[in-house]
């Protein structure tokens, strides 16, 4: 089966001009692929570049070299070289991203934050809100919070809203950055079940998880990011 994500020799270096131009090489030679229905977990210590790799796959960070191929509408597209509108299209239709910290647009109600990814691909607002409500319910966010913007929620609640908005659509690729970090045991269980459901639906997943237990339950493969460490 062909890969949904195919990364070859990707690298990332930060040049901090405000600090005298110091160069911070993060990763080099990143190479791995992810197939449909597979969950690949990136492992490694803090600062090794796990989040950076995830952000490069999403197109949030630019890639300094190599290729990041994404299977979009059946064809492979190199995100490292794609035009901005192509990246946006890929994000809209193919890749879902659950970031480590919720970064919602201010003043938008939780239900609308979660419904948004469906609305932009053509679902009616009413239908999208319905599905959003179901998912929020599954994640134990009480209904009385749905009309409030998530900015004032607790860390765990924000993370669950984040997960809901990432999981609501049918994106064939999901990127998860510490999806269970702020959650209690019950909610961790919910998230694991959601991930399982996505895997069975054939979604390719790349995740960062610190919790060994969770990792054991969701990972089909573990990729050690320290093998991509750039020379000191």
């Amino acid at each position, binding site marked *: 089966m062909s890969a949904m994500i195919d990364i070859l020799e990707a690298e990332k270096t930060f040049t901090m001009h405000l600090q005298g131009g110091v160069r911070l090489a993060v990763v080099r030679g990143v190479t791995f692929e992810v197939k449909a229905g597979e969950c690949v977990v990136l492992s490694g210590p803090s600062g090794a570049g796990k989040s950076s790799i995830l952000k490069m796959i999403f197109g949030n960070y630019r890639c300094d070299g190599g290729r990041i191929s994404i299977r979009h509408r059946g064809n492979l597209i190199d995100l490292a070289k794609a035009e901005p*509108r192509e990246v946006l299209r890929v994000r809209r239709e193919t890749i879902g991203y659950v970031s480590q910290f919720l970064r919602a647009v201010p003043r938008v109600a939780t239900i609308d934050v979660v419904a948004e990814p469906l609305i932009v691909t053509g679902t009616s607002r009413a239908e999208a809100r319905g599905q959003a409500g179901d998912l929020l319910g599954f994640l134990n966010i009480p209904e009385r919070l749905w009309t409030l913007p998530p900015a004032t929620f607790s860390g765990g609640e924000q993370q669950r809203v984040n997960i809901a908005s990432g999981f609501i659509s049918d994106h064939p690729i999901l990127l998860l950055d510490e999806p269970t970090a702020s959650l209690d045991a019950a909610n961790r269980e919910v998230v694991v079940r959601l991930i399982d459901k996505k895997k069975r639906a054939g979604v390719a997943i790349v995740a960062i998880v610190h919790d060994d237990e969770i990792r054991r339950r969701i990972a089909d493969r573990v990729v050690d990011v320290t093998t991509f460490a750039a020379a000191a």
Partner: protein
Amino acid sequence: MADRLHLANADQPLLVAENLSKNYGALVACRDISFTLYPGEVLAIVGESGSGKTTLLQMLSAQLAPKSGRVFYRMRDGVLRDLNALGEAERRFLFRTDWGYVHQDPAQGLRMAVSAGANVGERLMAVGWNHYGRIRGTASSWLERVEIDTARIDDTPRTYSGGMRQRLQIARNLVTEPRLVFMDEPTGGLDVSVQARLLDLMRNLVSELGLAAIVVTHDLAVARLLSHRVMVMKGGQVIETGLTDQVLDDPHEPYTQLLVSSILPP
């Protein structure tokens, strides 16, 4: 849903700027600027005072002739035209129907002595609408859309607050369903809470109507909220350009890094 309407034309550029340059004597306002804008894309032009961003906006909207370079626009019939080659009548017609221009100071984009309903209806009357009831009805529904109390349709903008005037200016521009809207510091000069409300409105309208927009702003937060792409300008040149979240989260150029780091954390 508006996205689908544009998917058909999504790969045909809407506006193409080619090597635009402008100088005032020895002062170079813009140097060799090129980019392409696609339907439904919002491009923010970010820079500090004196960066040349307003001059660029004026050249793009055919209000200022470039010293060199060209601007092409795809008309509603699908043909890409050089703006300089359009006759004045065509250009003025374009400005009133397919384009919008939102000024920083709403008083410049409105007729202050004329009622809100007439302000919104003027463009319709200019393209031949001749039925008072229909003009008024359309104006009223647009007032609602920009969250202005429709009971104030007969009041002049002189009686409106700054935020209301700006929303009225937006309604006036959008009534003919333009495909491209130019905005010059649309939230400048407004109170912070008023800015927030206006930005939310603009975000929703842009996405509902599938508008393309070019927004000049010095405020990176506005760029992040509204735009898909951003162009950072300094000294008349484009320093860095790309996807908004990319440029703001992973700035490459020194000046961009300086701008991004200068934002006060919330």
